[in-house]
């Protein structure tokens, strides 16, 4: 359908639209008009993504003279694929109605691991080894050598891409990663470099958060994206955590050992170059005198991603004189590694701020703040000069330089915590030095400053006033939408007691109580016998899940559960979890029915949908609080209290409940769907906890469902399933176009 929002004609690929989608678009348009940032919460299952895509592309189409670029950030690759396939649908619709004028170029960008089509390279185990394998074939020095000696292997796809030069472009269209690979195979061009190049010209770019937030990767966009862009962070409820992680580094003994090996290897290389090709080192020296900014001259395949964590004026500054010479820089690194090693030898937990740490480095190792700050860039320049292509071997020294650059750049919002052992296993020495970022606004600040409109949206952003404080920005629009429903397609319940009427909880004192474990097991057993198709269970941590599943196994409960449904479980191995999920879906598809055990805050909870028959019921066992004894968390809480006046308890509850809401929200994706949600912990019945759940869950939480025991919950589930089954055909009321137009 096609309709007007003020001066913009919106092309929406469906015949009907939900009222909240319309309202969402109106708010979004106001934010774009105001060229400001906005914060929008809309429940899952209301078609947020398509509303967003339609409005922004239509907005761009209505202003052909001043085209805006659209950068869409997702958390995961599979969300990227989903978004692109929705965009494809929309694009086809727009082409139908507007003709060739609607043509856009949209593509997803990912790492070499996901884009490479060279069979020898892509078979490498992980991302780093794929990167390294690629560099071994495509680095400029390798290609120079190959030009003389045909026996040196190169990558034919990259060579073809380079040969086609300016002709190597993507025709307009929407490209998922799979499409990019297919196109690359068709043309014989490297999809990765093609995509990296096309990102500059594309109208819509879809990639992972980290491409904007992580200073190590964000370099590509800091050069290429113009200010007139709209940046969207979808499913952004965890954005503060991503920001913090992007700027945190941890160093262990193994890191230091690896770094020492790396330094030795580099010094050998330097000696070799001195003997054979002294001119190279001199050329590098000269380049560094002129400043880091000139790196733009390097060939595309060699370009290291720039460091946007550094303000622009520093980038133009020359590298300090005392680390310009390669051997001098190496000796600085040696001293730094030695210093950190000394710090790790401590017997006690130590915690200090970056200023104190830098001062101590200066006095004890003679490295000043400026030298620290340039470590990351200086290292990469050196690695290029030394023609090092097995970069995956050099991760350790890169970690050290990351650390040095961050600690030399920021004076507040960080702390350095040194722990001699893991406190859960105090007898085993395992020293670790962690640089923890506490301030989420630091990583995202460049994004807010750089781009005209940044949209932060998710199904759970409650309480919505907290996010501007955490991320330190001023949204022009900040709204939370509710779900318009003519029937109850979700049915949340709070279960406080087990079948024996004793309270259930994952609170510390009750956590390992066998009675609670048994009650939880009985609850699941009741549910598997009542609910058809798929059931998803979320636990508060891996260790808790392992423990409780083992105890169910020992007491025979698991066996009884398995008589009703197949059981799959998330593990820390992604390959295995992915296969388990795939099998889980198959089991739901074929009608066998299955249960999936998963962990809140885990990878499955973050990005996998359990909509329709893949999840008729989700059970959240316990409240997913963070591990409150972690020193990092304590330091962050302290920082939040001092800087933003956010109370520890409030933050912890907010954080736990957004995770819980995120988990249970996985079961519903559209209004035709239905799902039940059980919050199995007595603490959910308390008002202060419950009220932090998003509005769209609370509005469906009836008072009668606030304090249930297992048998009552089973009864409600049985009734609910029966009712839903009969209601399946009833269509949800949707807003007609005419009403939408009237209301404007």
């Amino acid at each position, binding site marked *: 359908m096609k309709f007007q929002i003020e001066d913009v004609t919106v092309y929406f690929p469906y*015949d*009907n639209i939900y009222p909240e989608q319309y309202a969402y678009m109106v708010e979004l348009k106001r934010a774009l008009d105001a060229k400001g940032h906005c914060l929008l919460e809309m429940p899952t299952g209301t078609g947020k993504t398509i509303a967003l895509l339609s409005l922004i592309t239509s907005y761009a189409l209505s202003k052909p003279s001043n085209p805006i670029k659209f950068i869409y950030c997702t958390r995961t690759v599979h969300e990227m694929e*989903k978004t692109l396939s929705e965009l494809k649908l929309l694009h086809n619709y727009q082409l139908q109605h507007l003709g060739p004028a609607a043509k856009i170029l949209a593509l997803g960008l990912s790492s070499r*691991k996901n884009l490479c089509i060279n069979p020898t390279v892509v078979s490498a185990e992980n991302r780093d080894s794929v990167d390294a394998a690629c560099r071994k074939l495509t680095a400029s020095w390798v290609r120079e050598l190959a030009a003389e000696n045909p026996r040196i292997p190169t990558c034919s796809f990259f060579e073809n891409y380079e040969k086609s030069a300016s002709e190597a472009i993507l025709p307009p269209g929407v490209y998922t990663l*799979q499409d990019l690979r297919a196109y690359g195979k068709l043309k014989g061009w490297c999809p990765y470099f093609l995509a990296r190049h096309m990102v500059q010209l594309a109208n819509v770019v879809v990639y992972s958060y980290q491409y904007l937030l*992580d200073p190590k990767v964000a370099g590509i966009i800091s050069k290429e994206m113009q200010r007139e862009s709209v940046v969207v962070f979808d499913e952004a409820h965890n954005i503060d955590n991503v920001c913090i992680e992007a700027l945190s580094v941890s160093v262990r003994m193994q890191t230091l050992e690896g770094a020492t090996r790396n330094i030795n290897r580099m010094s050998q290389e330097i000696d070799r170059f001195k003997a054979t090709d002294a001119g190279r080192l001199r050329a590098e020296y000269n380049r560094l005198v002129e400043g880091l900014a000139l790196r733009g001259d390097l060939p595309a395949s060699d370009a290291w991603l720039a460091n946007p964590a550094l303000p622009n004026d520093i980038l133009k500054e020359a590298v300090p004189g005392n680390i310009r010479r390669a051997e001098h820089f190496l000796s600085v690194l040696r001293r730094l590694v030695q210093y950190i090693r000394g710090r790790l030898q401590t017997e006690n937990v130590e915690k200090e701020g970056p200023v104190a740490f830098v001062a101590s480095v200066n006095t004890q190792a003679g490295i000043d703040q400026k030298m620290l700050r340039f470590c990351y860039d200086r290292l990469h320049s050196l690695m290029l000069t030394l023609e090092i292509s097995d970069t995956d071997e050099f991760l350790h020294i890169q970690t050290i330089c990351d650390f040095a650059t961050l600690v030399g750049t920021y004076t507040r919002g960080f702390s350095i915590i040194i722990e001699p052992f893991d406190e859960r296993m105090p007898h085993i020495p395992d020293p670790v030095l962690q640089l923890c970022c506490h301030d989420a606004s630091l990583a995202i600040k460049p994004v807010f400053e750089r781009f005209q409109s940044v949209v932060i949206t998710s199904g759970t952003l409650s309480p919505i006033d907290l996010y501007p404080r955490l991320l330190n920005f001023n949204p022009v629009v900040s709204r939370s939408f509710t779900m318009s429903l003519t029937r109850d397609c979700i049915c949340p319940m709070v279960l406080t007691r087990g079948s024996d009427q004793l309270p259930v909880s994952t609170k510390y004192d009750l956590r390992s109580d066998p009675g609670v474990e048994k009650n939880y097991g009985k609850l699941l057993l009741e549910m598997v016998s009542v609910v058809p198709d798929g059931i998803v269970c979320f636990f508060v*941590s891996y260790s808790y899940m392992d423990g409780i599943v083992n105890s169910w196994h020992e007491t025979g409960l698991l066996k009884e559960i398995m008589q009703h449904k197949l059981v799959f479980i998330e593990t820390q191995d992604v390959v295995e979890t*992915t296969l388990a999920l795939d099998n889980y879906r198959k089991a739901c598809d074929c009608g066998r029915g299955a249960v999936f055990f998963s962990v809140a805050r885990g990878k499955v909870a973050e990005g996998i949908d359990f909509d329709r028959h893949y999840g008729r019921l989700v059970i959240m066992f316990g409240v997913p609080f963070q591990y409150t004894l972690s020193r990092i968390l304590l330091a962050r809480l302290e920082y939040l209290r001092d800087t933003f006046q956010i109370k520890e308890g409030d933050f912890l509850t907010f954080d736990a409940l957004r995770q819980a809401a995120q988990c249970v929200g996985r079961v519903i994706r559209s209004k035709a769907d239905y799902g039940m949600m059980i919050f199995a912990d007595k603490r959910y019945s308390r008002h202060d906890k419950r009220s932090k759940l998003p509005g769209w869950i609370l509005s469906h939480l009836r008072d009668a469902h606030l304090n249930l025991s297992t048998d009552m919950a089973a009864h409600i589930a049985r009734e609910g399933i029966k009712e839903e089954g009969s209601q399946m055909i009833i269509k949800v009321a949707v807003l007609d176009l005419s009403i939408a137009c009237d209301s404007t």
Partner: protein
Amino acid sequence: MADKQQQVVVKRARHKSSVKDPGTPGVLKLTKDRFTFMPNDPSSPVKHNVEFRTIKGHKFTKDGTKQALLNLTQDQGGNYIFEFENFPDRNVCKDFVASAIALSGEAGRTVPEKSAVPIQDEQLSAAEMERRIKLLQEDSDLQKLHKQFVIGGILSEAEFWATRKKLLEQNYSRRPKQRVALKNDMWSTKPLADGQIFAEKPAVRQAYLNFVPNKMTEKEFWTKYSRAEYLHSTKNVIAAAAEAAEDEELAVFLKQDDMLVNEARKKIRQVDPTLDMEADEGDDYMHLPIQDHGLPRNDNKDVLDSQYEPYRRSFSQHLNQHAAVVLQGRVIDVELGDTRSVAEALARTKHAELAKDASDVYLDKERLERISRMTEIEDLQAPRDPAVAPLSIKDPRDYFDSQQANAFSTLGDTVSGAKQLKCSVSTREAYCSLKECISEIKFQGLTEPTINSEVAFKVLNGLAQNISSNKYHLGRNPNESVLDSLPKITREELLLHWSSIQELLKHFWSSYPITTKYLLTKATKLKDAMSQIYPKLQEIKESVQSDLRHQVSLLVQPMLQALDAAFAHYDADVQNRSARSGERPNGF
């Protein structure tokens, strides 16, 4: 396995008419296709010479029980019990019989079929051939039809299959077939219940094939296996590693299953991209221990040396693998019981599965379709097509039942549907019509004497009872269709005729309009075949008992009508043709 190669087995045995019978001593001789029993006393009447083709199965007593018995059961229900002098003798015979039965069974089923398929004008690929034979084997009804028409010479092979292209394609497109499910039970007391251990643990399967019986006996093998399982259950990784270091066979069980790891790596490429978390890993630029947003990781990896790494096995892993195997169901059609053959068969299927290329075009397409299906928001989309449910009638019974229901509903329609009931009648109108009736009766007088209403009701009830009860039961109880009330022979005959008429009619109508001589002869042939069935149907109708005759005729009627229509069409066509043949001498 050596005795399988043996052509003839001769053993001393006693033939017994029952288990308690002392039996007749004699010599049992087994050859590939038959067994003979000659009593020691030539005058004894107990002599047997039986072909294995007629033998359906064999039973035997367990080793070490009182008697070494072998019981061969025959198709018709008879059986031959032999008692052997010792168990080894019996076992040799048992193995021989098992393979002989399997062989003759196969031969009975497939060989005549193969030879019966005449390769005429079309060159069939081997795969195509195989597919057809498989279909025939799976579907006995189809086989019957095939026998009746193709071998009977009414239809050619190509004609027969031409109408079944869909069936062939369907089979081709490797749609997952329903398989025998495995029990979802991880702790089975019988470790080999259905080859589950081998399916779940390919390394154990491989080890079995390697070790048994050359290196160790079956018993030793399973003892080792149990020991390994015990060590895992104690979760003492170090102890496991220590034991493994001493015993290399035990180590095989204790170490991580490499075959599983490889398999996983291959399977991951076929996974739905909306689930692919491995791809996320590839895009994750943060090498941090705290990736999961404040989720403490409980990996005690750093605690243990890497030398113990291979010996760690988690319960979750086992759980996932188990569920995957159960989901897949039983993939092999091997008679369970022989451990080795189970292991071999599993290894073969696994191998074949993995050989399939992950970048299969078909799979790719399916994956894309799946994603686009997932993307659309269903309830915002206007309904695109009128909702049409594809009809697929698989069971002829359904057809009959629905015919029955149709017959009843048309009956009802003619009564009530013909007269439009006028419901809103004014008092005046009603009174007028009533007055008319009374005056008419007054004028004509009553033609028949007035009947007591109770009696009338009884008669009516008695007449209609059968019909109404039928109508009432119809469709309510799936187990009790009209067909089931018929005698077995009649029922089977009806079903057979129904399916053959279907087949013939399909071919008959598809040969119109007649444009070539070939089609003409085909139509004639088909017509003749149909006219042979026609009187048979009549016969059935007449042969059944009177109380069922009504129902049978209801069933037969539509068939007869269809045949009549075909005959009428044929006759009309022939007349047309002969009328025109004057104008066109070549007949077309």
